[in-house]
């Protein structure tokens, strides 16, 4: 377990440094890293502190949030298919964010953007949990997810198409696929408070989720309040997914792929899977963000494209496996 933690942390650090040294302005790695900590007010300093550092930091924050949320939802629903992007939570958060921007509230009050995204995400999680039920059978979970995703995507497109701004309609793809291009420290600051609250809520779930593997009755006997567990999960997930989507758009599959890969490595214990998936999610999104910059440096290739290319085949594999188990 400790070896896994050290490996994940080392991988995260390496990718973080790689992300910082990668960009269209050709600057050497040593030069760029010293500019990050140096104190001259040159353009290099500006590039490092206002463009590359927030981008790498947001990849860690957003990826970690999505990995953590995926692991928590899968632990609670005891279903490996539960993932914020697939079940429509990210899509609902994007709808909330788009409404905040198009009504002008986000311009008037910066925290309106993550707050509205949180509201959207909350509506999404509540709907999914209500529709899928406490035991969350795969079929109802996926069907509920499809319905919520489709509705949220349609409403997001509608709001953007109704905008008087000629650029708004082209942004549908950003909200559906996500990107970290041209973000700034402002975005770090507006997402961070909501994410910190969400992380704090979700990491407390460990003991409850471990107990839940023994069944609901056994968990109750161990003194776990199921209704409190559910409430914490809903609020925590909405908080981290809302904040992540508000600044980076809806990025799918991170919360599916990461827990799936790490589950055998932590002995399938949900509590250990929580922190491992947070680290793993950060690693996956950093890697994806590096990939989009290496594949098409001049264009803003969306992050969701890369995560879906990795995640969708795995999703198909999981569905196949689930069907076999049920059959």
């Amino acid at each position, binding site marked *: 377990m400790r070896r896994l933690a050290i490996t994940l942390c080392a991988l995260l650090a390496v990718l973080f440094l790689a992300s910082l040294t990668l*960009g*269209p*302005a050709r*600057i050497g790695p040593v030069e760029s890293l010293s500019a990050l900590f140096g104190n001259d007010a040159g*353009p*290099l300093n*500006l*590039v490092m502190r*206002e*463009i*590359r550092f927030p981008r790498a930091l947001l990849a860690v924050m957003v990826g970690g949030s999505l990995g953590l949320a995926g692991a928590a939802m899968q632990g609670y629903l005891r279903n490996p298919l539960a993932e914020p992007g697939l079940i429509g939570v990210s899509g609902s958060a994007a709808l909330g964010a788009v409404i905040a*921007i*198009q009504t*002008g509230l*986000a*311009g008037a009050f910066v925290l309106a953007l993550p707050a509205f995204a949180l509201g959207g995400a909350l509506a999404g999680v509540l709907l999914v949990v209500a529709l899928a039920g406490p035991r969350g059978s795969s079929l109802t979970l996926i069907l509920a997810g499809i319905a919520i995703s489709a509705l949220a995507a349609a409403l997001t497109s509608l709001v953007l198409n109704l*905008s*008087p*701004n*000629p*650029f*708004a309609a*082209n*942004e549908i793809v*950003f909200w559906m696929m996500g990107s970290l291009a*041209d973000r*700034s*420290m*402002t975005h770090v600051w507006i997402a961070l408070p909501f994410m910190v609250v969400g992380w704090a809520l979700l990491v407390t779930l460990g003991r409850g989720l471990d107990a839940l593997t023994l069944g609901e009755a056994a968990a109750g006997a161990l003194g776990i309040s199921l209704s409190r567990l559910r409430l914490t999960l809903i609020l925590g997930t909405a908080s981290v997914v809302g904040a992540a989507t508000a600044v980076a758009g809806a990025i799918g599959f991170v919360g599916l792929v990461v827990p799936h890969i790490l589950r055998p490595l932590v002995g399938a214990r949900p509590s250990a899977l929580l922190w491992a998936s947070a680290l793993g999610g950060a690693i996956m999104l950093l890697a994806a963000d590096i990939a989009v910059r290496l594949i098409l440096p*001049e*264009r*803003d290739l969306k992050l969701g494209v890369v995560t879906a290319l990795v995640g969708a085949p795995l999703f198909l594999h999981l569905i196949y496996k689930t069907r076999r188990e049920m059959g």
Partner: protein
Amino acid sequence: MSQALAILRTIAAAACLCAASAWAAADVDAVDVDAAPARVVSMNLCTDQLALMLAAPGQLHSVSYLAVDPRNSALAEEARAHRVNHGRAEEIYLMQPDLVIAGSFTTRATVSMLQRLGVPVEVFEPAYSLEEVRTRILQMGAVLGREAAAQALVEDYDRRLAALRSTVEQRPDAVLYYANGYTSGDKTLAGEILTAAGFDNAAVAAGFSSGGILPLEVLAMLEPDALITSQPYPGASRSEAILDHPVVRKMREGRANGVFTDRDWVCGTPYVLRAIEELGALRHDLQGD
């Protein structure tokens, strides 16, 4: 049974074809009798403005909806006196025009539909340079049968452009920056406006001769003397949020910065001269002379 159906279908198709060609023939006749079209519909913002400047009274029937928007159009006031169209084949056909003027970026489906219906369509390329502005004016004069007016407009344009193109000893460098981080290099109309106003285009050093996306990092490293950004449209968008990025904000501090209005920049009309004038004033401020 099926054979009978096929025959019926052929007859119906033939009838349609006949009707369509009769229409077309009637139109050709009309054009032949009277060389200048009497009922002209323009469906592109740039051709709208050229037609508004050159058409004889009553000759221009309709302009596109963009032409009445003062943010995009330098002649919004004048455009309001005309019917507005939204570039849809159906509405334009029902206006019974004897000439339709479209831009080369107008949907191909719409243009070919109108041509199939027998409506004569003239397609205009956008102007990619200050020289091509002259060409477009003369082209518009030719299709409207208003050659003399076009010639006069070109002469006036040439005279004013020559006066504006004063020789500059020290050319500050500038970058044009739009929504989504788009920039224009020197081989574009906007780039030529910048050059004519006495600036060097710093994006050229970064390898942009036509238009393209200039990464924020590269913009910061270029450190141009002036940053000229587009004016945001109403209703927020993520695309325009880049113009409010801390890096762009910091570059505006202590630098000359201009905001351009799309109406004088997007179309190859003599109004580009007004854009050159405004930029020239910005350069004078920057150099303190």
